[in-house]
């Protein structure tokens, strides 16, 4: 953690923080109660725990029954089914455990942040596109109403999109050896690199006319 204090540069895409960030993007870690987006939902999260929380108690209960059933001789024909059920349960438990480990890691990390880093992290978690504007934009384009889930999905994807642009733009900027506020030329270079990736959606659009 001393690295971050003396580095002064708050790029959150260094070493293990970037790992944490990418893992954050792939598992939604709603355990960070202090940085929840809506105050109402934070109470619910505390009450019901993280997404895998409510599943923990039933799985533990099943664990007991599954062990006892496994130890008993194979009397019933459904023992094979129970074996696969056990596999599924153990896989689920492993996932939960790794999820828990992830969360603990994140918590330890966040407690070690300096104030600047905390600010930036808060901005990272809390910033989002206003759903009303996105809905308005999409409805004006589509000409039909869009459901709430679509708006939620598109807002989230757009934020990831901005994140990808920013990450690459910051790398480009560093390669060119320049200082923080990112300039449009870095952003354009970032876009060029993104579009060259085959996984980028709509990469077929701006094909050069050969």
């Amino acid at each position, binding site marked *: 953690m001393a690295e971050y204090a003396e580095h002064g540069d708050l790029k959150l895409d260094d070493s293990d923080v970037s790992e944490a960030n990418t893992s954050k993007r*792939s598992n*939604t870690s709603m355990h960070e109660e202090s940085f929840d987006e809506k105050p109402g939902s934070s109470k619910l999260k505390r009450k019901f725990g993280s997404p895998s929380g409510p599943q923990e108690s039933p799985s533990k209960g099943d664990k007991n029954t599954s062990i006892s059933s496994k130890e008993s001789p194979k009397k019933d024909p459904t023992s094979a089914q129970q074996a696969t059920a056990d596999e599924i349960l153990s896989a689920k438990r492993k996932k939960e455990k790794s999820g828990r480990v992830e969360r603990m890691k994140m918590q330890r990390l966040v407690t070690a942040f300096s104030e600047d880093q905390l600010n930036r992290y808060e901005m990272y978690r809390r910033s989002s596109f206003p759903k009303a504007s996105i809905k308005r934009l999409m409805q004006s384009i589509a000409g039909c109403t869009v459901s709430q*889930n679509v708006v939620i999905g598109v807002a989230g994807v757009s934020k990831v999109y901005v994140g990808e642009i920013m990450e690459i733009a910051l790398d480009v900027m560093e390669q060119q050896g320049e200082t923080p*506020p990112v300039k*449009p030329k870095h952003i354009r270079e970032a876009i060029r690199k993104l579009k060259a990736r085959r996984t980028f959606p709509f990469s077929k659009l701006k094909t050069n006319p050969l």
Partner: protein
Amino acid sequence: MADSDGTKQSPQHSKSSSQQDLDKKKRLFFKEIRCMMYGFGDDTNPYTESAELIEELVIEFITELTHKALQIGRPGRVQVEDIVYLIQKDARKYARVKDLLTMNEELKKARRAFDEAKF
């Protein structure tokens, strides 16, 4: 950038009409994009031009997404499945959409259970 001195005069010959329209139009996501840029690692005060460029990119992205979604699946409607289908190649975005939607479902369930439990 052209935006810096556009306030005083209206040089119709130097700017294209779309650029003029953009100047007159209010920026949709002004503050949010700046917060996001800071959160993702930019300076405390990101450049206005960079923020405007990113906003244009995002609007273009959403526009393309919407247009494509209109064509696939049920034509003329934008549904969640269309979005998921279009995004599936990009692993990061796909994972994010899945997470957001499952989270939303869980929250809805939790709220319903909570409301029922109130009695």
